[in-house]
Protein backbone atom coordinates (compact mmCIF):
# COMPACT_ATOMS: atom_id res chain seq x y z
CA UNK A 1 0.00 0.00 0.00
CA UNK A 2 2.84 2.37 0.85
CA UNK A 3 4.38 1.66 -2.53
CA UNK A 4 1.08 2.35 -4.22
CA UNK A 5 0.69 5.62 -2.34
CA UNK A 6 4.20 6.74 -3.25
CA UNK A 7 3.61 5.89 -6.87
CA UNK A 8 0.31 7.75 -6.84
CA UNK A 9 2.00 10.82 -5.34
CA UNK A 10 4.71 10.47 -7.95
CA UNK A 11 2.01 10.79 -10.62
CA UNK A 12 0.79 14.03 -9.14
CA UNK A 13 4.11 15.84 -9.35
CA UNK A 14 4.32 16.06 -13.17
CA UNK A 15 0.65 17.11 -13.28
CA UNK A 16 1.32 19.94 -10.85
CA UNK A 17 4.48 20.96 -12.69
CA UNK A 18 2.64 21.18 -16.00
CA UNK A 19 -0.11 23.15 -14.30
CA UNK A 20 2.42 25.60 -12.96
CA UNK A 21 3.84 26.08 -16.46
CA UNK A 22 0.34 26.65 -17.87
CA UNK A 23 -0.60 29.10 -15.15
CA UNK A 24 2.67 30.96 -15.53
CA UNK A 25 2.09 31.06 -19.28
CA UNK A 26 -1.25 32.82 -18.72
CA UNK A 27 0.75 35.98 -18.16
CA UNK A 28 1.97 35.86 -21.71
CA UNK A 29 -1.59 36.01 -23.03
CA UNK A 30 -2.08 39.32 -21.35
CA UNK A 31 -2.31 42.29 -23.66
CA UNK A 32 0.02 45.11 -22.69
CA UNK A 33 2.99 45.42 -20.41
CA UNK A 34 2.43 44.67 -16.70
CA UNK A 35 5.00 47.29 -15.79
CA UNK A 36 2.81 49.93 -17.45
CA UNK A 37 -0.21 48.86 -15.39
CA UNK A 38 1.80 48.86 -12.17
CA UNK A 39 3.44 52.22 -12.81
CA UNK A 40 0.05 53.92 -12.95
CA UNK A 41 0.52 57.69 -13.03
CA UNK A 42 4.25 57.35 -13.49
CA UNK A 43 3.97 55.28 -16.64
CA UNK A 44 5.75 57.97 -18.66
CA UNK A 45 8.88 57.68 -16.57
CA UNK A 46 11.29 55.14 -18.11
CA UNK A 47 13.26 54.95 -14.90
CA UNK A 48 10.23 53.84 -12.88
CA UNK A 49 9.36 51.29 -15.54
CA UNK A 50 12.90 49.94 -15.52
CA UNK A 51 12.82 49.71 -11.74
CA UNK A 52 9.52 47.81 -11.75
CA UNK A 53 10.80 45.44 -14.41
CA UNK A 54 13.96 44.80 -12.44
CA UNK A 55 12.08 44.25 -9.18
CA UNK A 56 9.66 41.78 -10.74
CA UNK A 57 12.41 40.23 -12.89
CA UNK A 58 10.35 41.09 -15.98
CA UNK A 59 13.59 41.97 -17.77
CA UNK A 60 14.93 38.42 -17.41
CA UNK A 61 14.38 35.62 -19.91
CA UNK A 62 11.09 33.75 -19.54
CA UNK A 63 12.52 30.44 -18.29
CA UNK A 64 14.34 32.27 -15.53
CA UNK A 65 11.18 34.16 -14.62
CA UNK A 66 9.32 30.85 -14.46
CA UNK A 67 11.89 29.15 -12.24
CA UNK A 68 11.94 32.13 -9.87
CA UNK A 69 8.13 32.19 -9.78
CA UNK A 70 7.89 28.44 -9.15
CA UNK A 71 10.61 28.47 -6.51
CA UNK A 72 8.80 31.15 -4.57
CA UNK A 73 5.42 29.49 -5.04
CA UNK A 74 6.87 26.31 -3.54
CA UNK A 75 7.76 28.31 -0.46
CA UNK A 76 4.22 29.61 -0.22
CA UNK A 77 5.01 32.96 -1.81
CA UNK A 78 2.52 33.56 -4.63
CA UNK A 79 3.62 37.10 -5.31
CA UNK A 80 1.82 40.24 -4.23
CA UNK A 81 -1.45 41.75 -5.29
CA UNK A 82 -0.95 44.63 -7.70
CA UNK A 83 -4.04 46.29 -6.38
CA UNK A 84 -3.93 45.98 -2.61
CA UNK A 85 -0.16 45.46 -2.37
CA UNK A 86 -0.59 42.49 -0.10
CA UNK A 87 0.84 38.99 -0.51
CA UNK A 88 -1.47 36.83 -2.61
CA UNK A 89 -1.04 33.92 -0.20
CA UNK A 90 -2.30 36.05 2.68
CA UNK A 91 -5.33 37.16 0.70
CA UNK A 92 -6.15 33.58 -0.22
CA UNK A 93 -5.74 32.36 3.34
CA UNK A 94 -8.08 35.09 4.53
CA UNK A 95 -10.79 34.15 2.08
CA UNK A 96 -10.42 30.39 2.10
CA UNK A 97 -12.27 29.72 5.41
CA UNK A 98 -15.36 31.52 4.12
CA UNK A 99 -15.48 29.38 0.99
CA UNK A 100 -14.69 26.23 2.97
CA UNK A 101 -17.66 26.90 5.25
CA UNK A 102 -19.87 27.49 2.24
CA UNK A 103 -18.49 24.43 0.44
CA UNK A 104 -18.85 22.23 3.52
CA UNK A 105 -22.48 23.23 4.01
CA UNK A 106 -23.13 22.79 0.30
CA UNK A 107 -21.64 19.31 0.38
CA UNK A 108 -23.82 18.27 3.32
CA UNK A 109 -26.90 19.64 1.54
CA UNK A 110 -25.92 17.89 -1.70
CA UNK A 111 -25.53 14.56 0.13
CA UNK A 112 -28.86 15.02 1.91
CA UNK A 113 -30.58 15.54 -1.44
CA UNK A 114 -28.52 13.37 -3.78
CA UNK A 115 -28.05 10.15 -1.80
CA UNK A 116 -31.68 9.51 -0.73
CA UNK A 117 -32.96 10.40 -4.19
CA UNK A 118 -30.38 8.09 -5.76
CA UNK A 119 -31.44 5.23 -3.48
CA UNK A 120 -35.10 5.89 -4.21
CA UNK A 121 -34.46 5.96 -7.92
CA UNK A 122 -32.49 2.69 -7.85
CA UNK A 123 -35.06 0.87 -5.72
CA UNK A 124 -37.88 1.96 -8.01
CA UNK A 125 -35.84 1.51 -11.17
CA UNK A 126 -37.90 2.11 -14.30
CA UNK A 127 -41.03 3.11 -12.37
CA UNK A 128 -42.38 6.60 -11.83
CA UNK A 129 -40.22 7.62 -8.83
CA UNK A 130 -37.14 6.79 -10.90
CA UNK A 131 -38.39 8.77 -13.87
CA UNK A 132 -39.28 11.71 -11.63
CA UNK A 133 -35.95 11.72 -9.82
CA UNK A 134 -34.05 11.54 -13.10
CA UNK A 135 -36.05 14.45 -14.46
CA UNK A 136 -35.27 16.48 -11.34
CA UNK A 137 -31.57 15.64 -11.66
CA UNK A 138 -31.50 16.63 -15.32
CA UNK A 139 -33.25 19.90 -14.52
CA UNK A 140 -30.72 20.50 -11.74
CA UNK A 141 -27.79 19.96 -14.08
CA UNK A 142 -29.30 22.26 -16.69
CA UNK A 143 -30.03 25.15 -14.33
CA UNK A 144 -27.34 27.81 -14.35
CA UNK A 145 -26.22 28.18 -10.76
CA UNK A 146 -26.20 31.93 -10.69
CA UNK A 147 -29.72 32.14 -12.06
CA UNK A 148 -30.98 29.76 -9.38
CA UNK A 149 -29.35 32.07 -6.83
CA UNK A 150 -31.07 35.13 -8.25
CA UNK A 151 -34.43 33.35 -8.30
CA UNK A 152 -34.01 32.25 -4.67
CA UNK A 153 -33.19 35.80 -3.61
CA UNK A 154 -36.28 36.95 -5.47
CA UNK A 155 -38.49 34.36 -3.78
CA UNK A 156 -37.06 33.98 -0.29
CA UNK A 157 -35.62 37.44 0.37
CA UNK A 158 -37.59 39.86 -1.77
CA UNK A 159 -41.04 38.28 -1.70
CA UNK A 160 -41.07 36.34 1.56
CA UNK A 161 -38.51 38.36 3.47
CA UNK A 162 -37.24 35.27 5.33
CA UNK A 163 -33.51 35.53 4.74
CA UNK A 164 -31.11 38.37 3.99
CA UNK A 165 -30.36 38.57 0.25
CA UNK A 166 -26.65 39.15 0.69
CA UNK A 167 -23.84 39.71 3.14
CA UNK A 168 -21.84 37.37 5.31
CA UNK A 169 -21.29 36.95 9.04
CA UNK A 170 -18.35 34.79 10.15
CA UNK A 171 -19.29 31.49 11.77
CA UNK A 172 -17.54 32.17 15.08
CA UNK A 173 -18.91 35.66 15.44
CA UNK A 174 -22.57 34.78 15.40
CA UNK A 175 -23.32 31.19 14.37
CA UNK A 176 -27.07 31.74 13.92
CA UNK A 177 -26.65 34.84 11.78
CA UNK A 178 -23.85 33.12 9.89
CA UNK A 179 -26.15 30.24 9.08
CA UNK A 180 -28.84 32.62 7.92
CA UNK A 181 -26.50 34.35 5.50
CA UNK A 182 -24.95 31.18 4.09
CA UNK A 183 -27.82 28.70 3.89
CA UNK A 184 -29.18 30.04 0.60
CA UNK A 185 -25.84 30.21 -1.23
CA UNK A 186 -24.95 26.80 0.19
CA UNK A 187 -28.18 25.38 -1.19
CA UNK A 188 -27.48 26.88 -4.61
CA UNK A 189 -23.99 25.46 -4.58
CA UNK A 190 -25.16 22.09 -3.27
CA UNK A 191 -27.85 21.83 -5.91
CA UNK A 192 -25.20 21.82 -8.62
CA UNK A 193 -23.57 18.64 -7.35
CA UNK A 194 -26.58 16.94 -5.77
CA UNK A 195 -27.69 15.87 -9.24
CA UNK A 196 -24.27 14.37 -9.93
CA UNK A 197 -24.24 12.62 -6.55
CA UNK A 198 -27.73 11.28 -7.25
CA UNK A 199 -26.58 9.73 -10.51
CA UNK A 200 -23.54 8.18 -8.84
CA UNK A 201 -25.69 6.82 -5.99
CA UNK A 202 -28.22 5.38 -8.40
CA UNK A 203 -25.55 3.58 -10.42
CA UNK A 204 -23.79 2.29 -7.30
CA UNK A 205 -27.06 1.11 -5.73
CA UNK A 206 -28.14 -0.68 -8.89
CA UNK A 207 -24.82 -2.44 -8.89
CA UNK A 208 -25.05 -3.31 -5.19
CA UNK A 209 -28.64 -4.55 -5.46
CA UNK A 210 -27.63 -7.03 -8.15
CA UNK A 211 -24.91 -8.61 -6.00
CA UNK A 212 -25.08 -12.07 -4.47
CA UNK A 213 -24.97 -10.86 -0.87
CA UNK A 214 -28.17 -8.92 -1.44
CA UNK A 215 -29.84 -12.04 -2.77
CA UNK A 216 -28.55 -13.94 0.23
CA UNK A 217 -29.89 -11.30 2.60
CA UNK A 218 -33.27 -11.48 0.90
CA UNK A 219 -33.19 -15.26 0.96
CA UNK A 220 -32.57 -15.15 4.71
CA UNK A 221 -35.92 -13.43 4.94
CA UNK A 222 -34.66 -10.00 5.91
CA UNK A 223 -37.04 -7.14 5.34
CA UNK A 224 -36.58 -5.09 2.20
CA UNK A 225 -35.77 -2.00 4.26
CA UNK A 226 -32.87 -3.74 6.01
CA UNK A 227 -31.61 -5.20 2.75
CA UNK A 228 -31.66 -1.85 0.98
CA UNK A 229 -30.40 0.40 3.73
CA UNK A 230 -28.00 -1.87 5.55
CA UNK A 231 -26.64 -4.27 3.01
CA UNK A 232 -26.83 -2.47 -0.31
CA UNK A 233 -26.46 1.17 0.67
CA UNK A 234 -23.42 0.60 2.88
CA UNK A 235 -21.55 -0.93 0.01
CA UNK A 236 -22.87 1.52 -2.54
CA UNK A 237 -21.66 4.45 -0.49
CA UNK A 238 -18.02 3.52 -1.13
CA UNK A 239 -17.85 4.74 -4.72
CA UNK A 240 -20.25 7.58 -3.94
CA UNK A 241 -17.99 8.98 -1.23
CA UNK A 242 -14.93 8.81 -3.42
CA UNK A 243 -16.64 10.40 -6.38
CA UNK A 244 -18.10 12.97 -4.00
CA UNK A 245 -14.63 14.02 -2.89
CA UNK A 246 -13.75 14.77 -6.51
CA UNK A 247 -16.92 16.83 -6.86
CA UNK A 248 -15.68 19.13 -4.10
CA UNK A 249 -13.42 20.70 -6.71
CA UNK A 250 -16.50 21.57 -8.73
CA UNK A 251 -17.87 23.29 -5.62
CA UNK A 252 -14.92 25.67 -5.65
CA UNK A 253 -15.74 26.62 -9.24
CA UNK A 254 -19.41 27.06 -8.45
CA UNK A 255 -18.50 29.27 -5.51
CA UNK A 256 -17.17 31.90 -7.92
CA UNK A 257 -20.58 32.94 -9.20
CA UNK A 258 -22.53 32.07 -6.07
CA UNK A 259 -20.37 34.30 -3.90
CA UNK A 260 -20.67 37.04 -6.47
CA UNK A 261 -24.47 36.95 -6.32
CA UNK A 262 -24.78 36.73 -2.55
CA UNK A 263 -21.83 39.11 -2.04
CA UNK A 264 -19.98 36.67 0.16
CA UNK A 265 -16.35 37.67 0.66
CA UNK A 266 -14.80 34.30 -0.17
CA UNK A 267 -12.49 32.77 -2.66
CA UNK A 268 -14.77 33.26 -5.64
CA UNK A 269 -15.29 36.93 -4.93
CA UNK A 270 -11.53 37.25 -4.66
CA UNK A 271 -10.91 35.92 -8.17
CA UNK A 272 -13.76 37.94 -9.71
CA UNK A 273 -12.60 41.17 -8.09
CA UNK A 274 -9.06 40.36 -9.19
CA UNK A 275 -10.26 39.83 -12.77
CA UNK A 276 -11.97 43.22 -12.78
CA UNK A 277 -9.03 45.02 -11.25
CA UNK A 278 -6.64 43.28 -13.64
CA UNK A 279 -4.87 42.00 -10.56
CA UNK A 280 -3.22 39.13 -12.41
CA UNK A 281 -1.03 37.67 -9.65
CA UNK A 282 -4.16 37.09 -7.57
CA UNK A 283 -5.90 35.37 -10.50
CA UNK A 284 -2.87 33.13 -11.01
CA UNK A 285 -2.61 32.40 -7.30
CA UNK A 286 -6.26 31.45 -6.95
CA UNK A 287 -6.15 29.19 -10.02
CA UNK A 288 -3.01 27.48 -8.72
CA UNK A 289 -4.48 26.92 -5.26
CA UNK A 290 -7.75 25.58 -6.69
CA UNK A 291 -5.82 23.24 -8.97
CA UNK A 292 -3.68 21.95 -6.12
CA UNK A 293 -6.76 21.43 -3.95
CA UNK A 294 -8.53 19.55 -6.75
CA UNK A 295 -5.54 17.32 -7.42
CA UNK A 296 -5.16 16.58 -3.71
CA UNK A 297 -8.88 15.80 -3.42
CA UNK A 298 -8.55 13.27 -6.22
CA UNK A 299 -5.67 11.69 -4.31
CA UNK A 300 -7.71 11.72 -1.12
CA UNK A 301 -10.57 10.06 -2.97
CA UNK A 302 -8.28 7.26 -4.12
CA UNK A 303 -6.93 6.78 -0.60
CA UNK A 304 -10.42 6.66 0.91
CA UNK A 305 -11.48 4.20 -1.74
CA UNK A 306 -8.58 1.98 -0.83
CA UNK A 307 -9.15 2.28 2.91
CA UNK A 308 -12.82 1.43 2.85
CA UNK A 309 -12.41 -1.35 0.35
CA UNK A 310 -10.29 -4.04 2.02
CA UNK A 311 -10.28 -6.19 -1.11
CA UNK A 312 -8.12 -3.65 -2.90
CA UNK A 313 -5.68 -3.10 -0.08
CA UNK A 314 -3.35 -5.89 -1.04
CA UNK A 315 -3.74 -5.60 -4.76
Amino acid at each position, binding site marked *: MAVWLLRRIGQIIPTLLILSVLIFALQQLMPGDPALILAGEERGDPQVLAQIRAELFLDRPLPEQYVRWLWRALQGDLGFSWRIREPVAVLILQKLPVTLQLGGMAFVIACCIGVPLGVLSAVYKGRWPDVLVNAVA*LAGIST*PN*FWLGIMLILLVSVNLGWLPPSGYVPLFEDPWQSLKTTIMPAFVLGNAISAVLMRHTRAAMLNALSQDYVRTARAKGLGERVVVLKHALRNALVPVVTLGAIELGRLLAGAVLTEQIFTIPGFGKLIVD*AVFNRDYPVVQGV*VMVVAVITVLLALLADVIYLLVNPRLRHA
Partner: protein
Amino acid sequence: MSATQARVAPPESPFRRALRQFFRHRLAVFGLVVVTAFVAAAVFAPLLAPYDPLQTSWTLVRKAPSAAHWFGTDENGRDVLARVIYGARASLMAGVVAVTLAALIGVPLGLLAGLSGGWTETIIGRVADAMLAVPFLILAIALAAFLGPALENAMLAIAITASPVFVRLARGMALEAKNTDWAEAARALGNPPWRLALVHVLPNIIPPLMVQATLSIAEAIIAEASLSFLGLGQQPPSPSWGSMLNSAQRFLTQAPWMAIYPGVAIFLVVLAFNLVGDGLRDALDPRSQRR
Protein backbone atom coordinates in the same frame (compact mmCIF):
# COMPACT_ATOMS: atom_id res chain seq x y z
CA MET B 1 -44.39 -3.74 -48.65
CA SER B 2 -45.35 -7.36 -48.01
CA ALA B 3 -43.94 -9.49 -45.23
CA THR B 4 -41.84 -11.63 -47.55
CA GLN B 5 -40.22 -8.61 -49.10
CA ALA B 6 -39.41 -7.23 -45.70
CA ARG B 7 -37.63 -10.42 -44.80
CA VAL B 8 -35.31 -10.32 -47.76
CA ALA B 9 -34.61 -6.60 -47.47
CA PRO B 10 -30.96 -5.82 -46.70
CA PRO B 11 -30.17 -5.16 -43.01
CA GLU B 12 -30.72 -1.62 -41.82
CA SER B 13 -27.65 0.62 -42.03
CA PRO B 14 -26.15 1.63 -38.66
CA PHE B 15 -27.03 5.24 -39.40
CA ARG B 16 -30.70 4.48 -40.01
CA ARG B 17 -30.83 2.25 -36.97
CA ALA B 18 -29.39 5.04 -34.81
CA LEU B 19 -31.83 7.51 -36.29
CA ARG B 20 -34.75 5.20 -35.51
CA GLN B 21 -33.43 4.66 -31.96
CA PHE B 22 -33.08 8.39 -31.47
CA PHE B 23 -36.61 9.19 -32.60
CA ARG B 24 -38.03 6.54 -30.29
CA HIS B 25 -36.58 8.55 -27.39
CA ARG B 26 -39.39 11.01 -26.76
CA LEU B 27 -37.43 13.36 -24.50
CA ALA B 28 -34.57 13.52 -26.98
CA VAL B 29 -36.99 14.48 -29.74
CA PHE B 30 -38.42 17.15 -27.45
CA GLY B 31 -34.87 18.41 -26.90
CA LEU B 32 -34.25 18.49 -30.63
CA VAL B 33 -37.43 20.50 -31.18
CA VAL B 34 -36.39 23.04 -28.54
CA VAL B 35 -32.87 23.32 -29.97
CA THR B 36 -34.32 23.82 -33.45
CA ALA B 37 -36.66 26.50 -32.13
CA PHE B 38 -33.79 28.38 -30.51
CA VAL B 39 -31.63 28.09 -33.63
CA ALA B 40 -34.53 29.44 -35.67
CA ALA B 41 -34.98 32.29 -33.17
CA ALA B 42 -31.29 33.16 -33.47
CA VAL B 43 -31.25 33.01 -37.28
CA PHE B 44 -34.53 34.83 -37.85
CA ALA B 45 -34.15 37.21 -34.89
CA PRO B 46 -34.78 40.35 -36.99
CA LEU B 47 -38.08 38.89 -38.24
CA LEU B 48 -39.24 37.48 -34.90
CA ALA B 49 -38.23 40.19 -32.46
CA PRO B 50 -41.07 42.66 -31.94
CA TYR B 51 -38.67 45.56 -31.34
CA ASP B 52 -35.07 46.61 -31.91
CA PRO B 53 -33.11 45.01 -29.03
CA LEU B 54 -30.90 48.09 -28.69
CA GLN B 55 -33.67 50.71 -28.90
CA THR B 56 -33.76 52.53 -25.56
CA SER B 57 -36.74 54.56 -24.40
CA TRP B 58 -37.01 56.96 -21.53
CA THR B 59 -40.75 56.46 -21.13
CA LEU B 60 -40.54 52.68 -21.06
CA VAL B 61 -38.00 52.15 -18.28
CA ARG B 62 -38.67 48.90 -16.34
CA LYS B 63 -42.28 48.37 -17.41
CA ALA B 64 -43.92 45.13 -16.29
CA PRO B 65 -44.91 42.57 -18.94
CA SER B 66 -47.89 43.74 -20.95
CA ALA B 67 -49.59 43.08 -24.28
CA ALA B 68 -47.16 45.43 -26.01
CA HIS B 69 -44.06 44.07 -24.21
CA TRP B 70 -44.67 40.41 -23.38
CA PHE B 71 -41.55 40.05 -21.25
CA GLY B 72 -41.55 43.66 -20.00
CA THR B 73 -38.79 46.20 -20.54
CA ASP B 74 -35.37 46.67 -18.95
CA GLU B 75 -33.61 49.51 -17.12
CA ASN B 76 -33.08 51.39 -20.39
CA GLY B 77 -36.57 50.82 -21.70
CA ARG B 78 -35.47 48.09 -24.11
CA ASP B 79 -37.84 45.22 -24.90
CA VAL B 80 -36.79 42.11 -22.93
CA LEU B 81 -38.38 39.67 -25.40
CA ALA B 82 -36.40 41.19 -28.28
CA ARG B 83 -33.23 40.98 -26.23
CA VAL B 84 -33.90 37.36 -25.25
CA ILE B 85 -34.42 36.47 -28.94
CA TYR B 86 -31.25 38.26 -30.04
CA GLY B 87 -29.42 36.88 -27.00
CA ALA B 88 -29.87 33.39 -28.47
CA ARG B 89 -27.31 34.42 -31.09
CA ALA B 90 -24.53 35.04 -28.56
CA SER B 91 -25.31 31.88 -26.58
CA LEU B 92 -25.67 29.48 -29.50
CA MET B 93 -22.73 31.00 -31.35
CA ALA B 94 -20.59 30.69 -28.25
CA GLY B 95 -21.72 27.12 -27.66
CA VAL B 96 -21.26 25.88 -31.21
CA VAL B 97 -18.12 27.84 -32.10
CA ALA B 98 -16.36 27.09 -28.82
CA VAL B 99 -17.11 23.37 -29.00
CA THR B 100 -16.18 23.10 -32.69
CA LEU B 101 -12.91 24.82 -31.92
CA ALA B 102 -12.37 22.58 -28.88
CA ALA B 103 -12.89 19.49 -31.05
CA LEU B 104 -10.60 20.85 -33.75
CA ILE B 105 -7.88 21.35 -31.15
CA GLY B 106 -8.54 18.24 -29.10
CA VAL B 107 -9.26 15.49 -31.61
CA PRO B 108 -6.07 15.79 -33.74
CA LEU B 109 -3.94 16.03 -30.60
CA GLY B 110 -5.71 13.03 -29.11
CA LEU B 111 -5.27 10.98 -32.29
CA LEU B 112 -1.62 11.96 -32.44
CA ALA B 113 -1.12 10.96 -28.82
CA GLY B 114 -2.95 7.66 -29.15
CA LEU B 115 -1.35 6.53 -32.38
CA SER B 116 2.21 7.72 -31.89
CA GLY B 117 2.73 6.69 -28.28
CA GLY B 118 6.01 7.39 -26.52
CA TRP B 119 6.94 10.90 -25.46
CA THR B 120 4.35 12.59 -27.65
CA GLU B 121 1.63 10.66 -25.90
CA THR B 122 3.03 11.32 -22.45
CA ILE B 123 3.27 15.05 -22.97
CA ILE B 124 -0.12 15.52 -24.62
CA GLY B 125 -1.79 13.24 -22.09
CA ARG B 126 -0.20 14.99 -19.13
CA VAL B 127 -1.12 18.45 -20.34
CA ALA B 128 -4.72 17.36 -20.89
CA ASP B 129 -4.85 15.80 -17.41
CA ALA B 130 -3.38 18.92 -15.86
CA MET B 131 -5.98 21.11 -17.55
CA LEU B 132 -8.76 18.79 -16.44
CA ALA B 133 -7.53 19.19 -12.86
CA VAL B 134 -8.65 22.82 -12.86
CA PRO B 135 -12.42 23.19 -12.50
CA PHE B 136 -13.94 24.18 -15.86
CA LEU B 137 -15.29 27.59 -14.94
CA ILE B 138 -12.18 28.70 -13.03
CA LEU B 139 -9.93 27.91 -15.98
CA ALA B 140 -12.32 29.64 -18.39
CA ILE B 141 -12.50 32.73 -16.16
CA ALA B 142 -8.73 32.89 -15.83
CA LEU B 143 -8.21 32.54 -19.58
CA ALA B 144 -10.91 35.08 -20.40
CA ALA B 145 -9.46 37.46 -17.83
CA PHE B 146 -6.02 37.34 -19.38
CA LEU B 147 -7.35 37.52 -22.94
CA GLY B 148 -9.52 40.54 -22.16
CA PRO B 149 -13.30 40.99 -22.05
CA ALA B 150 -14.98 40.26 -25.41
CA LEU B 151 -17.33 37.58 -26.72
CA GLU B 152 -14.65 36.24 -29.10
CA ASN B 153 -12.18 35.90 -26.23
CA ALA B 154 -14.80 34.20 -24.06
CA MET B 155 -15.39 31.68 -26.86
CA LEU B 156 -11.68 31.08 -27.22
CA ALA B 157 -11.33 30.64 -23.45
CA ILE B 158 -14.21 28.15 -23.38
CA ALA B 159 -12.79 26.31 -26.41
CA ILE B 160 -9.39 25.89 -24.78
CA THR B 161 -10.98 24.80 -21.51
CA ALA B 162 -13.22 22.26 -23.25
CA SER B 163 -10.51 20.78 -25.50
CA PRO B 164 -8.87 18.31 -23.05
CA VAL B 165 -12.08 16.26 -22.94
CA PHE B 166 -11.79 15.78 -26.69
CA VAL B 167 -8.08 14.94 -26.39
CA ARG B 168 -8.92 12.24 -23.89
CA LEU B 169 -11.79 10.87 -25.97
CA ALA B 170 -9.80 10.73 -29.22
CA ARG B 171 -6.75 9.31 -27.49
CA GLY B 172 -8.78 6.55 -25.86
CA MET B 173 -10.42 5.59 -29.13
CA ALA B 174 -7.11 5.68 -30.99
CA LEU B 175 -5.47 3.45 -28.39
CA GLU B 176 -8.35 1.03 -28.59
CA ALA B 177 -8.25 1.02 -32.38
CA LYS B 178 -4.48 0.63 -32.56
CA ASN B 179 -4.60 -2.82 -31.05
CA THR B 180 -7.38 -4.26 -33.17
CA ASP B 181 -6.81 -6.82 -35.88
CA TRP B 182 -8.02 -4.54 -38.63
CA ALA B 183 -5.58 -1.81 -37.62
CA GLU B 184 -2.85 -4.43 -37.65
CA ALA B 185 -3.95 -5.47 -41.14
CA ALA B 186 -4.06 -1.86 -42.33
CA ARG B 187 -0.53 -1.33 -41.03
CA ALA B 188 0.69 -4.54 -42.58
CA LEU B 189 -0.62 -3.32 -45.94
CA GLY B 190 1.72 -0.38 -45.62
CA ASN B 191 -0.71 2.35 -44.61
CA PRO B 192 1.06 5.31 -43.03
CA PRO B 193 -0.09 6.32 -39.52
CA TRP B 194 -1.92 9.43 -40.70
CA ARG B 195 -3.98 7.33 -43.08
CA LEU B 196 -4.76 4.94 -40.28
CA ALA B 197 -5.90 7.90 -38.20
CA LEU B 198 -8.04 9.55 -40.87
CA VAL B 199 -9.55 6.60 -42.67
CA HIS B 200 -9.77 3.99 -39.96
CA VAL B 201 -9.89 5.61 -36.55
CA LEU B 202 -11.71 8.89 -37.16
CA PRO B 203 -14.95 7.36 -38.49
CA ASN B 204 -15.14 5.21 -35.37
CA ILE B 205 -14.75 8.24 -33.16
CA ILE B 206 -17.56 10.17 -34.77
CA PRO B 207 -20.47 8.69 -32.78
CA PRO B 208 -18.95 9.30 -29.29
CA LEU B 209 -17.63 12.62 -30.57
CA MET B 210 -21.13 13.74 -31.51
CA VAL B 211 -22.42 12.79 -28.06
CA GLN B 212 -19.57 14.58 -26.33
CA ALA B 213 -19.94 17.65 -28.54
CA THR B 214 -23.65 17.96 -27.77
CA LEU B 215 -23.09 17.69 -24.02
CA SER B 216 -20.12 20.08 -24.28
CA ILE B 217 -22.32 22.64 -26.04
CA ALA B 218 -24.65 22.59 -23.04
CA GLU B 219 -21.69 23.20 -20.76
CA ALA B 220 -20.27 25.90 -23.06
CA ILE B 221 -23.57 27.78 -23.11
CA ILE B 222 -23.65 27.87 -19.31
CA ALA B 223 -19.99 28.95 -19.32
CA GLU B 224 -20.67 31.76 -21.80
CA ALA B 225 -23.63 32.95 -19.73
CA SER B 226 -21.45 32.85 -16.61
CA LEU B 227 -18.64 34.79 -18.27
CA SER B 228 -21.06 37.35 -19.69
CA PHE B 229 -22.68 37.61 -16.26
CA LEU B 230 -19.25 38.50 -14.87
CA GLY B 231 -18.72 41.00 -17.67
CA LEU B 232 -16.11 38.85 -19.43
CA GLY B 233 -18.20 37.84 -22.44
CA GLN B 234 -20.58 39.76 -24.69
CA GLN B 235 -20.11 43.47 -24.05
CA PRO B 236 -23.03 45.88 -23.62
CA PRO B 237 -25.21 47.03 -25.23
CA SER B 238 -25.27 43.82 -27.34
CA PRO B 239 -27.73 41.43 -25.74
CA SER B 240 -26.62 38.21 -24.09
CA TRP B 241 -28.54 36.21 -21.52
CA GLY B 242 -25.70 36.31 -19.02
CA SER B 243 -25.21 40.07 -19.12
CA MET B 244 -28.98 40.60 -19.01
CA LEU B 245 -29.06 38.67 -15.75
CA ASN B 246 -26.23 40.78 -14.44
CA SER B 247 -28.13 44.03 -14.88
CA ALA B 248 -31.36 42.36 -13.74
CA GLN B 249 -29.79 41.56 -10.39
CA ARG B 250 -29.63 45.25 -9.54
CA PHE B 251 -33.37 45.68 -10.08
CA LEU B 252 -34.69 42.52 -8.46
CA THR B 253 -37.21 44.31 -6.27
CA GLN B 254 -38.43 46.73 -8.93
CA ALA B 255 -38.29 44.58 -12.07
CA PRO B 256 -38.16 40.82 -11.36
CA TRP B 257 -39.22 39.98 -14.94
CA MET B 258 -35.81 41.15 -16.12
CA ALA B 259 -34.25 38.28 -14.16
CA ILE B 260 -36.76 35.56 -15.02
CA TYR B 261 -36.85 35.30 -18.83
CA PRO B 262 -33.14 35.25 -19.75
CA GLY B 263 -32.66 32.55 -17.11
CA VAL B 264 -35.54 30.48 -18.45
CA ALA B 265 -33.98 30.76 -21.91
CA ILE B 266 -30.60 29.48 -20.66
CA PHE B 267 -32.29 26.68 -18.73
CA LEU B 268 -34.39 25.55 -21.71
CA VAL B 269 -31.59 25.55 -24.24
CA VAL B 270 -29.14 23.79 -21.91
CA LEU B 271 -31.75 21.22 -20.93
CA ALA B 272 -32.52 20.64 -24.62
CA PHE B 273 -28.87 20.05 -25.52
CA ASN B 274 -28.51 17.68 -22.57
CA LEU B 275 -31.61 15.74 -23.66
CA VAL B 276 -30.35 15.49 -27.25
CA GLY B 277 -26.93 14.39 -25.96
CA ASP B 278 -28.46 11.65 -23.79
CA GLY B 279 -30.65 10.54 -26.68
CA LEU B 280 -27.71 10.41 -29.05
CA ARG B 281 -25.69 8.39 -26.58
CA ASP B 282 -28.44 5.81 -26.21
CA ALA B 283 -28.98 5.71 -29.97
CA LEU B 284 -25.35 5.57 -31.08
CA ASP B 285 -23.78 3.41 -28.44
CA PRO B 286 -25.72 0.24 -27.72
CA ARG B 287 -23.33 -0.58 -24.87
CA SER B 288 -24.26 2.45 -22.82
CA GLN B 289 -28.00 1.80 -22.53
CA ARG B 290 -28.66 3.38 -19.20
CA ARG B 291 -31.95 1.75 -18.49
